[in-house]
């Protein structure tokens, strides 16, 4: 029974869509099927997954967090500036992650304590965090901090911070055999979030808040702290994405990841999470993110210019949601008709129910 349920689930459709996609792209361009290339190409889009995975939790509560793309840049620049200021690079990494969590919790605090729509709050912080990220180098100079070099922190305003130590940049470029480190981190993070979402009380609370926050409140669910934690996790994911991007591109910039908003939300929604809250899975987001990422890689490998990629991703998002809605409407119609038929046949005294 459980297997039947799994086969009929949205995640299963995503699995075979993913297989189909890789096969089709491989048929068009056989070099795409090289397993090592395939695995290492994931590093180009792991930042999307890292931000999308915890965002799933936020959307399940009926909220949304669009400020993640700014938190990526903020984390990256914090890491770079801390390193320039002489902090050990791994301590700087820790600092960047901490900033991400705090930024996310700031969102959560506002969402939990007011009735302002989460979209408005995270829109405000989207601008605020991005502004802070670009302004931070100048601010540190103004506050009189000392940096290596003559021009102070402001030198890094537009250039980005390069020359990060090897031990740090190896983080995103190394791997276990054929599996690159970023992918391992993504898988571990998915596993962790999956367990949190589906196996803990906290996870059940998230669904309950998404279905009916009022009912959750009256059921003695700590709505506020659960909400704050969900947004904090989202901030952590975005910061982790920023740190890995910094390592991958070997330079810290305040505008890293600013183009990722569309694919991040696409991954969550394509993964089967209801944008209104109350349902969704981490596995779905993981699979959908892979689907989008490989599609992008495949299109680029086919020689399609990167301009076309957003068209395909955007079109795919609309198409999938429209098809899902039509299917569920059709299902509803079938169920209704069957119910009507069975009632009609009972009245007629017959017993031939299909």
């Amino acid at each position: 029974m459980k297997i039947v349920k799994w086969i009929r689930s949205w995640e299963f459709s995503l699995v075979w869509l993913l297989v189909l996609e890789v096969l089709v792209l491989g048929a068009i361009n056989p070099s795409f099927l090289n397993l090592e290339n395939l695995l290492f190409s994931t590093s180009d889009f792991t930042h999307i997954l890292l931000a999308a995975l915890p965002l799933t939790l936020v959307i399940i509560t009926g909220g949304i967090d669009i400020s993640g793309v700014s938190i990526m840049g903020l984390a990256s620049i914090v890491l770079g500036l801390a390193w320039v200021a002489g902090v050990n690079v791994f301590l700087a990494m820790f600092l960047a992650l901490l900033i991400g969590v705090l930024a996310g919790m700031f969102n959560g605090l506002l969402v939990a304590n007011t009735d302002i729509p989460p979209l408005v709050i995270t829109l405000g912080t989207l601008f605020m965090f991005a502004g802070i990220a670009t302004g931070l180098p100048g601010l540190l100079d103004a506050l009189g901090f000392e940096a290596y070099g003559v021009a102070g922190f402001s030198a890094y305003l537009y250039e980005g911070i390069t020359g990060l130590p090897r031990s740090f940049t190896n983080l995103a470029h190394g791997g276990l055999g054929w599996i690159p480190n970023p992918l391992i981190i993504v898988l571990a993070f998915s596993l962790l979030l999956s367990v949190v979402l589906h196996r803990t009380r906290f996870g059940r609370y998230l669904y309950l808040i998404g279905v009916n926050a009022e009912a959750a409140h009256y059921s003695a669910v700590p709505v506020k702290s659960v909400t704050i934690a969900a947004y904090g996790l989202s901030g952590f994911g975005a910061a982790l994405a920023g740190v890995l991007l910094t390592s991958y591109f070997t330079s810290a910039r305040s505008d890293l990841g600013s183009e990722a908003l569309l694919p991040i939300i696409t991954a969550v929604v394509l993964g089967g999470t209801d944008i209104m809250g109350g349902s969704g899975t981490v596995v779905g987001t993981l699979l959908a993110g892979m689907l989008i990422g490989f599609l992008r890689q495949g299109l680029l490998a086919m020689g399609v210019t990167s301009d076309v990629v957003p068209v395909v991703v955007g079109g795919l998002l609309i198409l999938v949601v429209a098809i899902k809605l039509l299917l569920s409407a059709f299902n509803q119609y079938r169920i209704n008709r069957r119910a009507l038929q069975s009632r009609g046949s009972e009245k007629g005294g017959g017993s031939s129910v299909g």
Partner: protein
Amino acid sequence: MNRILRSREALVLILLFVLVALIGAINPNFLRARTLLNVVNSSLILVLIAIGEMFVVVTGGIDVSVGAITGLSAVILGTSLNAGVPLPLAILLTLLTGLVAGSVNSVGITFFRVPPIIMTLGTLGVYRGLMLIITGGSWIETIPPNIKAMASWSLLGVRVFAWVVLLIAILATLLVRRLRQARYLYAVGDNKDGAYLLGIPVKATLFAAYALAGLFAGAAAVIFVAQIGFVPMQTGNGQELKAIAAVVLGGVNLTGGVGSPISAVIGALFLTAIDSMLVFLKVPGFWNNAFGGAILLIAVYVDYRIRRTLDARQRQIRAQVRASKMPEIRPQPVTEEAR
């Protein structure tokens, strides 16, 4: 007094005047007519996009594709002008592009029932991609001088574009107040099912809202091309978020049913004015976003506090009235110990 306090438009307008006066006190140059008119001129694009966005937000929806529609329309205007299309026809074509792009959103949202944020996020990618495909990814750097000249036409010392936008804003405000079909927008935003039961054409109303948002984004593209004089690929990038910020700042409620074109105008003026104010305070330009975001958050938060205080006071008054009128059915006061 309560009504003024409750209206976000008034709150933001007062805040804007206070800020302008404050900056003027620090740097009197800011209060010169030319500076203030410059602020108005540079806000025109955002004002138009924000008015369009308002129609959508009032219905309880959201449109994050308007920036991309502005970009796409600007590209259409640039390429058609360079292909030798006469100016009036090219402008018509641009407005039509906006209208069609908006209508595509409408079709998905009304007929296929795709949630607005998903639909417009998808078309955001599609339109932005189309823009790059049409131009091959390179900027349109040469624009015929005839459209650029339009940006410098003046009437009574104020740019014609500013007059036109003012006229559009007044017209939109009047229509929203007087036109039955425009009232439908509010009815749908306030209570979709209720509106349906009243016989209001919900789908047609939603269709019109997103189409209008597209049309206004197209109109913004005309001003953009005229004022800037070339079409970079970033045209309209992030404008959708600024437009949403502007309407929210101006007092349009994202849950629908509340707001007016005036809100959009005030919000857009405010956001643009902040940029100029920071220049006059000698704050580097890269802080603009941080201040814009912070002010948006502060405005919605202050609004939330005021609303809550007023509601609490009203509840108290109501309770008092009830207590004095009907003492016999007054419930036993619940004390802390009784709980």
